[in-house]
C-alpha cells in the first residue's frame, strides 16, 4: 500500500513518488539518479554554495523554456517538474566544474584521495576533460594539523563542507575559513593539532584531497587495493560500524561504515586512528610455553604449527584441580561463551573488576527487566531533552557526544520548522536558530567537552550526582523516593528546571553509565526514566559502558572477578585460562598476582601485557580485524565483525582456540562460528537474536553459488604480491565462518547490509557512493540497518520498581589530605588498546591529578607540582592540575593513562606533598614502573 504522505514530482517528464520536506537533490539521489554535487552533504543538508547540482525546472508540462535552479535548494513539492538531462543544465554543470578546476593542481597521482575522490567522480560525470585556461594557478601554504589529518590546501574547491562539519556539526572551535574572495583558506589560525575528537571525518567529508588520512599516508594504498570487510569498532561500548582495510598483511586504515541506527556518516578519531596496535611489532604471533632455564630465568619455547593444541590439551588434562576461565569484555561473545563451556558455568568469571561487574549487572537488570527502552545513537541525536547523569560522554563514548550535539538542536530546529523553514535548508535554519539550544543537563564529576552546550551543569561527587538524579525523579513523580536532607545549592536549583524540561519534552533521553563508578547514579537514572514513563512519556535510557562487549559479557553471566581471587587464595584454582584480558587493569596488583599464582596459567591474547608475562602458556589471538565474531553494543545490539585478512604466524580467533581445546578435551565440537552461535542461542534465550545479527556462512545471493568478495574488482598485483617468495600464486584462504571470500571474484552487486565491505557504485568511487546503498538518503541501508537488538523493552510482566538506596550527601573528610578520588576520562588514553597506536599515543595526556585550586592550595601554590597519592595501599606520583570544576574534597584521576590503573574508583585517597628523601622518578605508579610487559 502506498504511503498517503508521498507527493508526485516529475523528472524528465516521468512521475515519481517521493517524500515531502526534502530537497530535489535529495529526492533525485534517493530515486537513483546521478546528479553531481559538492557542498550538499546528507548529514549537513543544503546551502546552495557550489552551484553544481543545477537542473532545469519547468512550471508545467507546457513550459518548454524552463529555468535553471539548484536542485539542493528546490523543495520537493507536489508537481515539481525538473530535467537533469536538459542540454542547458548539462552545459551549466560542466562549466561550473571547469571553474572549480581552474586552480586545482595537477596532483592526482600523488594525492591520497585519488581513486576515491568525489571531485574526480563529479568531473567525469559532467564530462569536463580538457583544461582551457592558460592563467596561473593560485597556491597556498599547508598547515600541520596533528598526527591524524594531512593538509594540502592547493586542492581546495571552496565547498565549505569542512567548516560546516567541523564547526557547525561537530562543535569544533579551532578551525575556520580565512582570507577573502578566491583566496579563501580553510585551516587553523596557526599550525597545531586539531582539537576536535571528530577531526578525522574531515577526510571523508572533504570532496577532494585537502584533508587526507595522515596514518594511511605512512603506508599508502589506494582504495581499489584494500581488502576490506565489515567490522565493528572496539574502542568503546557504542559499537560503531567501521571498514578496516588491509594490504600486504598489515592494516592500513579504518573508514566509517554507514549504519543509519548507530554511527551514521561519522566516527570518532579514537575509532578511526586507534588501529595501530594491530600492526604492532610486539604482537604475539606464535604459541609458546614457559620453562625455567638453567640459571632460573624464564625461557619462552615457541611451539610449531600443530604443537600448540596437544600442549594445551596436556596442560588441561593434567590439571590437578579446578580449571577456571576468566572472560573479557573486549573479546567476542563466541570466545567468552566457549570459555564458559570449557571451564563450566560455575568456574567462569566475567573479566570485570568487582565494581564494574556490579555496575554492568545493574545496567543489564534495568534494561532487560523493565519497560524502559534504550535508544539507538540515532534516537539520542533526535532527543529533544537530555539529562546526562554522572558520565563524561565525550571522553568515554565520543560518538554519543556527537549525537548530543545534534540533540540540542532538535527543539530550535522544530521552532524554525514551524515558521516555515524546511529542515534541509541548512543556512536558513542556522540563521533562525542562532545560538538557541534545546534542553541538555549535565551532572558529572568534572567539566566535560559538551558542558558549553548545556542549559544546566552540576559538578560534584558521585553521591551528590546520584542525589540530584533521585531528586529529579521525585520532582517528576512524587511517589519516587526523594533524598533525605538538602542537596548542594547548585544542584537544588537545577532540580525543578530539569524536571520541567523532561516532563514537557516529547522524546526525553537519560544518559548514565559506569563512568561515575556508582550504583546509586545508575539507580537514579533508572528512577528518572521510570518516573517519566509513569507520567506517560516514552523516555530513552542510554547507558555508557566501558568496552566493546561489556553488555555481551554481562548478559552471558559469570561470576565476579573478585570471587576468582578468593578461589585462588583458597587454592581452589589449579589452572587459570585468561581470555584477552590484562588482570592488572581490573584488579589490584596483589590480587592479580594471587590469581596468576595458580599452578598453570594459559593466556590467550594478541599483545604482551603483564598478565601474559606471568602465563605459563600463551596462545596468539586475532585482533578485531583478523577475526570473525559478534559484539554486543551498549544498546544491546549484536553486531558481527568479519575477518579482514588472514594474519601471519599461527594467530587464530580466540573462540577457535577455545573450540579446539574444548573438542580436544572431550567436549562438544564446534567447527564454524555459526555452530557456536546456534549453540549459544539455544542455551540462552537472551542470545536468540545472535545468529540473525548477520547472514550465516552458507548464505549466497539468490540462485548464485559464489561468495561475496572482500577485494574490490580492481584489486591489483594478484600475481606479483607473493612473487618474491614463490612465483606460483597461493590458493586464496578459505573462510568457513562467513559468506565472504578472500578474493576479487564473486558476487559484484549490492550485498545484504551486514556484508557491505565497501561503498562503491559505478561512477561513484568515493565514500559518497553510500547514497546508492540506502533506501533513502540518510535513511536505513537497503534491507535494514545491520545488527540485531537483543534487548527490547518488555511490554508486559513485572515493571521495574523504584531504586531506593539513596546515598547520604557527600561530606569532605575531616582529614584535609583525604580526597574522594573519582575517575576522569580522555578520548585518547582512557581506552588502552587505541592508546597503543602511535598516532593516538602522541595525543595521550601525561598523567596528572586534578584538584580544585582551593584544595590544592593546602599543598602547593604551583600547578604541576608533584604530589604522592595513596589509594588503598597503591602509591602514585603525579603532578597536580588545577581544575575549578572539581568539587572541594574530590580529586580527579585520569583513569587508564599509562600507569594509572589497578585501583577501583571512586575511592578515598591520601595526598602527600613531596618531601626530601623521595627518589627522583618520573610521574606514574611507583611500584608499577619497569615491569615486564606493562604496556
Amino acid at each position: 500500500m502506498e504511503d498517503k504522505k508521498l507527493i508526485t514530482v516529475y523528472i524528465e517528464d516521468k512521475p515519481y513518488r517521493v517524500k515531502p520536506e526534502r530537497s530535489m537533490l535529495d529526492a533525485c539521489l534517493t530515486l537513483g539518479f546521478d546528479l553531481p554535487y559538492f557542498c550538499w552533504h546528507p548529514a549537513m543538508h543544503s546551502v546552495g554554495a557550489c552551484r553544481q547540482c543545477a537542473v532545469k525546472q519547468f512550471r508545467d508540462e507546457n513550459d518548454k523554456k524552463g529555468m535553471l535552479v539548484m536542485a539542493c535548494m528546490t523543495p520537493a513539492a507536489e508537481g515539481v517538474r525538473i530535467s537533469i538531462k536538459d542540454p542547458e543544465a548539462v552545459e551549466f554543470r560542466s562549466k561550473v566544474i571547469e571553474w572549480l578546476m581552474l586552480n586545482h593542481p595537477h596532483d592526482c597521482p600523488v594525492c591520497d584521495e585519488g581513486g576515491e575522490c568525489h571531485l574526480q567522480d563529479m568531473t567525469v560525470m559532467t564530462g569536463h576533460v580538457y583544461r582551457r585556461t592558460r592563467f596561473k594557478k593560485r597556491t597556498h601554504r599547508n598547515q600541520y594539523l596533528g598526527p591524524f589529518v594531512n593538509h594540502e590546501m592547493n586542492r581546495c574547491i571552496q565547498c565549505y563542507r569542512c567548516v560546516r562539519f567541523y564547526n557547525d556539526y561537530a562543535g569544533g572551535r579551532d578551525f575556520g575559513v580565512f582570507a577573502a574572495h578566491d583566496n579563501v583558506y580553510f585551516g587553523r589560525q596557526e599550525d597545531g593539532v586539531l582539537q576536535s575528537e571528530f577531526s578525522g571525518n574531515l577526510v571523508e567529508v572533504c570532496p577532494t584531497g585537502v584533508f587526507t588520512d595522515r596514518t594511511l599516508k605512512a603506508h599508502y594504498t589506494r582504495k581499489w587495493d584494500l581488502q576490506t570487510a565489515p567490522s565493528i569498532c572496539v574502542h568503546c561500548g557504542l559499537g560503531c560500524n567501521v571498514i578496516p582495510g588491509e594490504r600486504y598483511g598489515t592494516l592500513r586504515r579504518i573508514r566509517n561504515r554507514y549504519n543509519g541506527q548507530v554511527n551514521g556518516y561519522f566516527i570518532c578519531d579514537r575509532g578511526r586512528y586507534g588501529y595501530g596496535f594491530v600492526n604492532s611489532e610486539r604482537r604475539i604471533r606464535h604459541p609458546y610455553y614457559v620453562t625455567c632455564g638453567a640459571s632460573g630465568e624464564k625461557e619462552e619455547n615457541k611451539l610449531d604449527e600443530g604443537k600448540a593444541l596437544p600442549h594445551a590439551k596436556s596442560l588441561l588434562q593434567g590439571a590437578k584441580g579446578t580449571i577456571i576461565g576468566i572472560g573479557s569484555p573486549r573479546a567476542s561473545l563466541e570466545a567468552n561463551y566457549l570459555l564458559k563451556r570449557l571451564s563450566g558455568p560455575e568456574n567462569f568469571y566475567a573479566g570485570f573488576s568487582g565494581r564494574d561487574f556490579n555496575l554492568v549487572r545493574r545496567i543489564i537488570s534495568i534494561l532487560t527487566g523493565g519497560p524502559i527502552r534504550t535508544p539507538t545513537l540515532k534516537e539520542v541525536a533526535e532527543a529533544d531533552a537530555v539529562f546526562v547523569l554522572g558520565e563524561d560522554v565525550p571522553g568515554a563514548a565520543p560518538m554519543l557526544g556527537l549525537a548530543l550535539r545534534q540533540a540540542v538542536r532538535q527543539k530550535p530546529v522544530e521552532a524554525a520548522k514551524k515558521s516555515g523553514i524546511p529542515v534541509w535548508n541548512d543556512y536558513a535554519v542556522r540563521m533562525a536558530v542562532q545560538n538557541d539550544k534545546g534542553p541538555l543537563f549535565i551532572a558529572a564529576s568534572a567539566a566535560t567537552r559538551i558542558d558549553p552546550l548545556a542549559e544546566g551543569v552540576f559538578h560534584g561527587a558521585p553521591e551528590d550526582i546520584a542525589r540530584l538524579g533521585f531528586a529529579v525523579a521525585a520532582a517528576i513523580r512524587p511517589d519516587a523516593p526523594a533524598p533525605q536532607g538538602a542537596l548542594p545549592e547548585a544542584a537544588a536549583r537545577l532540580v525543578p528546571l530539569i524536571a520541567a524540561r523532561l516532563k514537557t519534552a516529547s522524546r526525553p533521553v537519560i544518559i548514565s553509565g559506569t563512568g561515575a563508578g556508582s550504583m546509586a547514579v545508575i539507580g537514579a537514572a533508572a528512577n528518572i526514566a521510570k518516573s517519566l514513563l509513569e507520567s506517560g512519556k516514552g523516555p530513552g535510557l542510554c547507558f555508557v559502558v566501558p568496552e566493546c562487549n561489556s553488555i555481551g559479557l554481562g548478559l552471558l553471566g559469570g561470576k565476579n572477578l573478585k570471587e576468582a581471587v578468593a578461589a585462588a587464595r583458597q587454592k581452589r584454582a589449579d589452572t587459570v585460562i585468561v581470555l584477552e584480558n590484562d588482570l592488572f587493569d581490573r584488579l589490584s596488583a596483589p590480587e592479580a598476582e594471587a590469581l596468576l599464582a595458580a599452578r598453570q596459567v594459559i593466556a590467550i591474547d594478541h599483545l604482551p601485557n603483564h598478565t601474559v608475562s606471568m602465563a605459563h602458556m600463551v596462545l596468539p589471538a586475532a585482533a578485531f580485524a583478523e577475526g570473525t565474531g559478534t559484539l554486543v553494543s551498549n544498546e544491546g545490539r549484536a553486531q558481527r565483525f568479519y575477518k579482514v585478512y588472514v594474519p601471519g604466524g599461527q594467530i587464530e580467533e580466540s573462540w577457535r582456540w577455545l573450540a579446539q581445546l574444548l573438542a580436544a578435551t572431550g567436549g562438544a565440537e564446534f567447527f564454524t562460528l555459526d555452530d557456536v552461535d546456534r549453540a549459544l542461542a539455544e542455551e540462552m534465550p537472551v542470545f536468540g537474536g545472535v545468529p540473525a545479527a548477520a547472514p550465516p556462512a552458507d548464505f549466497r545471493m539468490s540462485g548464485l553459488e559464489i561468495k561475496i568478495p572482500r577485494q574490490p574488482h580492481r584489486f591489483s598485483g594478484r600475481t606479483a604480491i607473493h612473487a618474491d617468495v614463490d612465483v606460483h600464486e597461493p590458493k586464496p584462504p578459505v573462510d568457513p565462518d562467513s559468506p565472504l571470500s578472500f578474493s576479487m571474484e564473486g558476487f559484484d552487486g549490492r550485498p545484504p547490509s551486514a556484508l557491505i565491505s565497501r561503498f562503491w557504485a559505478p561512477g561513484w568511487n568515493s565514500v559518497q557512493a553510500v547514497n546508492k546503498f540506502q533506501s533513502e538518503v540518510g535513511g536505513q541501508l537497503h534491507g535494514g540497518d545491520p545488527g540485531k537488538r537483543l534487548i527490547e523493552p518488555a511490554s508486559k510482566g513485572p515493571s521495574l520498581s523504584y531504586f531506593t538506596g539513596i546515598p547520604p550527601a557527600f561530606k569532605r573528610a575531616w582529614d584535609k589530605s583525604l580526597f574522594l578520588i573519582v575517575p576522569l576520562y580522555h578520548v585518547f588514553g582512557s581506552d588502552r588498546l587505541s592508546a597503543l597506536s602511535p598516532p593516538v599515543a602522541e595525543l595521550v595526556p601525561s598523567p596528572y591529578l586534578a584538584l580544585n585550586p582551593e584544595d590544592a592550595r593546602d599543598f602547593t601554590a604551583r600547578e604541576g607540582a608533584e604530589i604522592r597519592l595513596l589509594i588503598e595501599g597503591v602509591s602514585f606520583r603525579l603532578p597536580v592540575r588545577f581544575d575549578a570544576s572539581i568539587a572541594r574534597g574530590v580529586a580527579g584521576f585520569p583513569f587508564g593513562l599509562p600507569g594509572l590503573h589497578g585501583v577501583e574508583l571512586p575511592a578515598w585517597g591520601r595526598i602527600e606533598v613531596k618531601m626530601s628523601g623521595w627518589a627522583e622518578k618520573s610521574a606514574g605508579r611507583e611500584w608499577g614502573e619497569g615491569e615486564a610487559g606493562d604496556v
Partner: protein
Amino acid sequence: MFSILRAIWTVFLHLFRRKVTVLYPEEKPRIPPRWRGRIILSRDPDGGERCVACYLCAVACPVGCIALQAAEDEYGRRYPEFFRINFSRCIFCGFCEEACPTCAIQLTTDFEMSEYYRHNLVYEKEDLLISGPGKHPGYNFYKVAGLAIKGKDKGENENESPPVDVKGLLP
C-alpha cells in the same frame, strides 16, 4: 595431377625470392621503436626517480603482475618502496605505460628474456630502474604538480602564482 605439379612449381619459384627468415640469434632483427618489450622504470631529467607510486600501472595491469608500495621522503616526494613486476605473468600489453601519468614506466625493444626458472622473471625495482629518461626526455612531473618537494617550494611550478597571503585584504 596438374595441381600437384603446379604446387611444386610454385615452391620451386620461391627459391629465387628474397629471404624472409632471419638467422636469429646470429643475425638481430630490426625492432620498431614502439615495440612492447621488457618494462623499465625511468628517471626524470634531473635524475630523480620518475615513479611516484600512484598505483595506476598496477590497477591497469590485466594480469595483475605489478605490485608496489608507496613511500615518501622527508620532503614529501613519493617514490616506490618496492616495485615488482612478475614477467612470467606479463603479457606485454602496454596498458601500464598508457596509464602512467609521469612517463615513468616504459616498454622497451628488448624481448630476450628467456629464463630456465620462472622465479628469475620476477624483477624488483633495482632490476627495472634505468638511469635515463627513456622515450620521454623532457618530462618532469614534479615541475607541473602542485606539491612542494625538496628544492621546489609552493608556487614555484610552471604556471603557478606565489602562495596566497591569507592575511592580505587586497583584491
